[in-house]
């Protein structure tokens, strides 16, 4: 095992981070919707990973560890910026966007989700985690994940319109 504080361990960390960065960055982008914040989140994640790297690198799955840190960092960030949009305040359902507008529409729809619901959506449908795995990553119960998922799906359907909404399967 490489030493936690050794040059070898640092190289292992750098090697891991270089490989993990693109995926984490994209996940972070889905969570926050802008690249700058996404990179801040990834940097925060890497900082925390490296801080505990001697221990982290002994974990069964560094990827899972990193994912948990990233998603919790996102939720922490959002706790500072409690701008949740109540369902009643949501904009009118959009007409089915054409492909060119789809990206923006999806991002806008994601922006309307409360942070935890957004995290649940990304973990479940982007990271392909099960309900239980999602619950573990976020430190909440499986029931909470299910209810957040249902709520998020409903909000996405409303925002994206029924046509695109059909793409969403609960």
């Amino acid at each position: 095992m490489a030493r936690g504080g050794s040059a070898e361990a640092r190289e292992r960390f750098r090697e891991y981070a270089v490989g993990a960065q693109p995926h984490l960055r994209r996940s972070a982008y889905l969570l926050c919707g802008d690249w700058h914040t996404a990179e801040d989140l990834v940097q925060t994640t890497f900082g925390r990973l490296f801080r505990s790297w001697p221990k982290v690198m002994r974990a069964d799955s560094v990827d899972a560890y990193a994912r948990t840190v990233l998603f919790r960092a996102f939720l922490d960030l959002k706790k500072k910026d409690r701008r949740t949009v109540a369902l009643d305040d949501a904009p009118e359902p959009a007409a089915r966007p054409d492909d060119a507008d789809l990206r923006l529409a999806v991002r806008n729809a994601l922006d309307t989700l409360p942070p935890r619901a957004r995290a649940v959506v990304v973990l479940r449908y982007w990271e392909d985690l099960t309900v239980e795995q999602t619950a573990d990553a976020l430190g909440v119960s499986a029931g909470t994940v299910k209810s957040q998922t249902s709520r998020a799906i409903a909000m996405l359907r409303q925002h994206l319109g029924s046509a695109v909404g059909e793409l969403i399967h609960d």
Partner: protein
Amino acid sequence: MRKLLSDAIPAPEDEPHQRDVISAAMAWGERRRRLDWVLTGAATLAVVAVGAGVAVLGTGSGPGTSAASGGADSQKTLGGMLDSKVVNGQPFQSFSPTCMPPPNLPGGQTKKYCDLWQEQVDWSTEFAKGSVPYIQAKLPQGFTVKAANSYVVQLTAPDGKTNLLFPSAGSAANLLGGHTPSCAHPGDDCTQTSAGGGHGVIGQYPSEGQSAEWVADGLKDPVILLGVNVVGTSDVGGLPAPTGGRLLSADDITRIVSNPDYVKYAKESWKHEEEIRKQLLQLQGPSPTDGPTGQPSATGSGMPSGGGTGSSPVNWPPASGSHS
């Protein structure tokens, strides 16, 4: 649904260039880890065992020593504290971590928490900067020491060669576990000193560098720590890599760390740090994010991870299902 999310992300070729977050994160993580270990005493054995080829002195686990990091690991981690190859040739980037207060703070306490948190984050830098006049006062003639906005200061010899110094302090109870500092095998690589009403050791660590600790008799005052990085290690903390071999002798270092004025400064500074930590813990209350499984605390970036909380992420078994 996954396709929908994929559609929300620009194609890879359209993504903006990735900035180098890794070097900055490593610099921050290293700094925090260094502070963690100094604060929690997890480096107890390591600090006692400064010097090359030091056998673990058998003091047992310090208060912050996790089961997963026995004596050997502790010694390794001290290397992490002092070895400067943090940025590994990459330009240093400053990285200001964000205060992330516990979610259940009473109203109006968030600012207080974050002010304290920032003060604690800055403590090691402030200590280093404040150490400069005391170090300068005991340097051989012609040597100078320069502060930076960093936990590292730069030592320059009359010929222009440089070393990087890491001044710090920590709890004697945590770091020494009731033992007076001593070398396992006194010799060229580890020197024991008795000076200024206390005891110290100056050892070789890391690489060809030096690491010193000194504590006043009675072991009630904080331990003064001084690491020295020499040529062969890279830049750290925004300061360029050292260009000289060992510029200071063991006697020089002893004079620095046992300087009564420096000891007084360290004592006051450490007391202040302890007060900050105490207030943070009071505000934080029971750890809100460390679940029963010991999962990593994403909100804990500003807090020492030890202090007997047992929140070591090493115990966390990732649930499963890493992404493919």
